[in-house]
């Protein structure tokens, strides 16, 4: 079921009761919790990619059937232990349980970055260990900025991107669809956004040249390839060039992480999605002094996962909200 409504309700965001003087009332708190989540089930049906939040349950076979299904997970931030979620191990395990309970086993998982919080080997090890218990055995990764700290991403590439090009970009074909994993977290420029760079863009142009225009194309990268809120760095400087190479395709889906909340936007032939995080929620664009973690007690965080599902899609007249549920 997909409902669409506008989110422009005057004064709706005013705090009415602020017991803890922390700028968050109960209603606001519940709202914040909508931004934390588990992952998304993606099903390719008739060449069009549909996605469902895993937050609400396991869905029916009818929804999960298609040419191909996969799960997107993102922003594990293994090693994060602050009040916003001191137990990211448990929330990751809960996400894997939900994936394993799906009525049809997905072909594979996409992980859109920030596997670790501080690029430490034990943090990567922890995630690898937990993901081993997931039924889909293949995981395709792209790095987040937290995965390439200190060593220019050497450790990341050795663990997750062997055989990939450059900083870890690659593509593969699966059941008629073409998947492209891009890296936009390296060599970030002062004052700038995410960056793909000339070498990767050149590779992308060649990579898609031979494809027929009816090929469904799915692009995944950590930082958004569409600009949501540049003030917080939520965009990629040279993504327009990448998207220009994909213009001739009938069905293009872009899947990102980074902002720890689900959003979606449709622009021409391209559908943009971002995935939630299992680690901690981040505020809505511009609605906090910074994009830092939303601080809430862990037990409340976990019990409130799945309160509601909100996909924000910036449109011409403010934010449109879509609720997608697996029913």
């Amino acid at each position, binding site marked *: 079921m997909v409902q669409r409504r506008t989110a422009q309700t005057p004064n709706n965001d005013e705090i009415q009761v602020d017991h803890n003087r922390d700028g968050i009332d109960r209603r606001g708190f519940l709202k914040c919790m909508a931004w934390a989540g588990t992952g998304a089930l993606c099903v390719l049906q008739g060449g069009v990619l549909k996605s469902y939040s895993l937050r609400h349950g396991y869905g029916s076979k009818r929804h999960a059937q298609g040419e191909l299904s996969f799960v997107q997970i993102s922003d594990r931030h293994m090693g*994060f232990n*602050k*009040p*916003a979620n001191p137990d990211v191990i448990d929330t990751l395990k809960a996400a894997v349980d939900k994936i394993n309970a799906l009525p049809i086993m997905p072909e594979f998982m996409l992980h859109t970055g920030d596997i670790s*919080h*501080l*690029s430490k080997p034990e943090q990567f090890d922890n995630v690898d260990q937990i993901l081993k218990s997931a039924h889909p055995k293949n995981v395709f990764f792209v790095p987040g*900025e*937290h995965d390439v*700290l*200190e060593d220019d991403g050497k450790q990341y590439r050795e663990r997750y991107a062997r055989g990939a090009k450059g900083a870890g970009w690659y593509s593969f074909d699966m059941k008629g669809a073409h998947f492209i994993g891009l890296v936009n977290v390296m060599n*970030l*420029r*002062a*004052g*700038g*956004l995410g960056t793909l760079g000339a070498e990767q863009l050149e590779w992308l142009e060649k990579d898609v040249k031979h494809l027929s225009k009816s090929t469904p194309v799915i692009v995944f990268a950590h930082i958004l390839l569409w600009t949501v809120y*540049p*003030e*917080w*760095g939520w965009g990629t400087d040279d993504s327009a060039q990448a998207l220009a190479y994909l213009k001739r395709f009938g069905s293009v889906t872009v899947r990102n992480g980074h902002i720890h909340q689900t959003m979606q936007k449709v622009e021409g032939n391209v559908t943009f999605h971002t995935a939630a995080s299992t680690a901690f929620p981040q505020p809505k664009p511009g609605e906090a*002094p*910074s*994009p*830092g*973690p939303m*601080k809430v007690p862990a037990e409340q965080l976990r019990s409130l996962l799945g309160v509601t599902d909100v996909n924000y899609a910036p449109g011409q007249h403010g934010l449109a909200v879509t609720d997608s549920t697996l029913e």
Partner: protein
Amino acid sequence: MKKSLCTYAVAISTLLGFIALAKTPGTLAATPESSPSGIEVKIDNFSYSPAAVTVKAGTQVTWTNHDDIPHTVVSTDNLFKSKTLDTDEKFSFIPTKPGTYSYFCSIHPKMTAQIVVQ
């Protein structure tokens, strides 16, 4: 809640007139408390505060990350670079040559600031 301050190795690099130091808060002459003439820059809410500081050559500048998210302090001209600073971790350096030095967070590049050395 903030974590206790972490201990990490002393790293000294001298690049084009800069001496970069990362040290424990307990080290003599490393903290603003024991170095009254030192300048402290806070990293809070994804920004450096103050965003511009003016210091005399030889004055130690110390950054402390108060966010729950790691940040870095990296010169845009590659003159100095901190390691990744987790919550409550510090980075210090002592500029020795006059000039204007811009820096940013290499993880969150929208975070920019500068030091003016007289």
